[in-house]
């Protein structure tokens, strides 16, 4: 008996209608369109507006005047801004190195199985979820010269000579904030390194052990090179964070004492919200964006090269 659908199977498939084809072609746009639109409105559009504003002199009164590159010329001669950029660079170098080293050490320590492993991971991650304001306030008390816990501890240990005015002395203020920033973010970078360590093929380190490689040699020649991608990610995230640091400094020192903890974002804040120079603040933010972009590109290139070398 012939199948009922035989004639249909023998014919060529019917062409979908124009509307269907059009829908199929445009369907991805419908799915990703709203997301893209939101992304554009909240990420790209502000950057574009910032770029446009950087070419104007505008204040909170809503008056905007096109000034071309005049703001960039002013910025070039703005000693306060470049001083804050130098502070930012010092802050970035110190925090990136500190976070990377500490997080790597912690990740290596917490990667091996032992009782309480998860508890320690949680403890080290805890500062990440505490707000900057709370952290800044608590550490501000701890660093206080006379009643602060740190100097009290040094005095109790008979190390009173080491007690310093940690946030009130320009020689120590920036480095005290560096310390707090490292303390806050190390747990975050540790998690990234842990993810990397758990993705490493065990055969390589086991084979190296069989060949008689020491623990240091396994770390130096196998683990670290294989982690380079994660190191790159950590460097980029830490660098971006270091150049956009604001809240911790605002809470702990407000940029003082004597401007010793002024960073680029503090300058942008000052220009925009205290001096109401939105155009000039946008110029400062644009230059900062360029600096961050250049640093990120360099780091990505270096990481990529390291990856390719390993491959």
């Amino acid at each position, binding site marked *: 008996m012939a199948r009922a659908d035989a004639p249909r199977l023998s014919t060529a498939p019917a062409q979908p209608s124009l509307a269907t084809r059009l829908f199929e072609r445009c369907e991805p746009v419908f799915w990703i369109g709203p997301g893209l639109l939101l992304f554009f409105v909240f990420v790209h559009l502000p950057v574009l507006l910032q770029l446009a504003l950087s070419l104007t*002199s505008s204040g*909170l*009164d*809503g008056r905007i005047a096109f000034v071309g590159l005049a703001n960039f010329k002013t910025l070039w001669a703005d000693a306060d801004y470049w001083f804050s950029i130098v502070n930012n660079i010092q802050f970035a170098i110190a925090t990136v190195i500190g976070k990377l080293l500490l997080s790597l050490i912690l990740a290596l320590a917490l990667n091996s199985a032992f009782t309480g492993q998860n508890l320690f991971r949680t403890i080290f991650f805890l500062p990440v979820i505490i707000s900057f304001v709370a952290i800044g306030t608590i550490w*501000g008390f701890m*660093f*206080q*010269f*006379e*009643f*602060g816990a740190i100097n009290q501890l040094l005095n109790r240990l008979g190390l009173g000579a080491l007690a310093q*005015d*940690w*946030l*009130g*002395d*320009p020689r120590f203020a920036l480095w005290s904030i560096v310390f707090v920033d490292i303390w806050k973010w190390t747990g975050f970078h540790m998690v990234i390194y842990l993810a990397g360590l758990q993705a490493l093929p065990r055969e390589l380190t086991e084979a190296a052990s069989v060949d008689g490689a020491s623990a240091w040699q396994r770390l130096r020649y196998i683990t670290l090179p294989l982690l380079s991608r994660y190191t790159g990610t950590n460097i980029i995230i830490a660098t971006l964070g270091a150049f956009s640091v604001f809240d911790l400094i605002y809470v702990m*020192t*407000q*940029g*003082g*004492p*004597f*401007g010793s903890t002024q960073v680029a974002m503090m300058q942008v804040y*000052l220009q925009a*919200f*205290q*001096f*109401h120079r939105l155009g000039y603040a946008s110029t400062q933010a644009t230059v900062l964006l360029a600096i961050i972009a250049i640093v990120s590109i360099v780091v990505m290139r270096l990481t990529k090269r390291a990856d390719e070398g390993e491959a």
Partner: protein
Amino acid sequence: MTMRITRRSYLLGSAALAGAALSPFGARAQSATPLAYKGELSIVGLQRNPPDKAFEAIVAAFEAAHPDIKVKATQYPSERFVALLTASLAAGEPLDMLVLNGQDLRRYAVDGTLGPLDGLVGDTARFAPAALETGRIDGKLWGVPYGWYGGFPVFYNKAVLDKHGLSEPKSYDDFLVIRDKLKAAGIKTFTHPGKNIYLWPVWFFTTFAQTTGNRANERTVEILTGKGKFTDPDVVQALDLVFQFGKDELITRSVFSLDTPQAVAEFSSGRAAFFMQHDGLIQQIFTAKPEAVDLDVMLMPKLVTGEAKSQFPGGPAAVIGIPAKVEGDRKAAILALLADLTSDAANTTIVRDNNGTVPVNLSVKGSDIPQVSKLIQLSDGLNTYLDWNWPPEITRVFQEGMQAGVAGQMSAEAVAAKAQATLDRLVGEGYAFK
């Protein structure tokens, strides 16, 4: 259409009517002349914490007396006031009255937002001259003081001085004697929230009042209009006088990590004897009642030779202005409300309910607290905060420069030169003091 009255709305309504009827404002407002205007009046003011209940009561009484008028009061936090008001004005929101921070009055007077009030606010002799002067720009009255005024005198702990056989200093040398005796006992002469850069300029305001022969505000206007310079000797000398406090360790380096609560703690625990602080400290001390403190208040002793007298910097808690666009019956209505808010009866309640210090109305007695009474006497000749005239960039230079100067990191000449360079740059960019 039926109107549904719930138990809650009935109780609230009854309470409001009873409150309005029983309050002194209610009694006053009910006898007020009827107003031709009908509709809504819009007030934008400063957010107070705790809320200014007296203000709310006066407004409620006004509404009760004029049932056809509804008052809509919006409050913005002080630190975002300018930004929010700018947005509101740009959006065309109606505005009939502004209750401003004193330092913002100039901005809205010179840009045409506010209209002059000369001859519209009754007898201005009811206000303390120092408080009223804040509202006057270029000879015209743009705002009237509201509530109380106060500032930064020098507070001291009499108990600490008595314990060490010392008395209130009358000269800079007296401070040095006090420093030596207290240092031996492990007590600081001055405490100061030195981490908070916003509070450093008050030291300069205090010394500049003396180096200018009590012409601090006039000299400030001269400098900002190019008839003087920040590098002039009176400015440099005023800075130097403050920096000397650091050099002589009357203010020690340890204050640079103190914020306001920590400085208050240092003072109220008897670990520092003097404190140049806002007079809100009186209420703080009276609320906490610290055992180690017998609070007293004084003016900075005379630090210069010549005719100048000691003054302390300050200003009214708020200033009320009326937008230039408000006209006709609407203006008559809002002026009636302004009269209610600035009457002697209202002022008495406002100062009492908000723990204010020196009433802006001369005939209002103010608090019986001895320290407040003394402060009221000292307030005669209070000089308005100079940064109410400065552009914010200059304020910043002084904030950072004062902090650095007291720490010995910058000289008075360097701070003055930086202020002048900043002003020159601003003028080059189009800034003009009005």
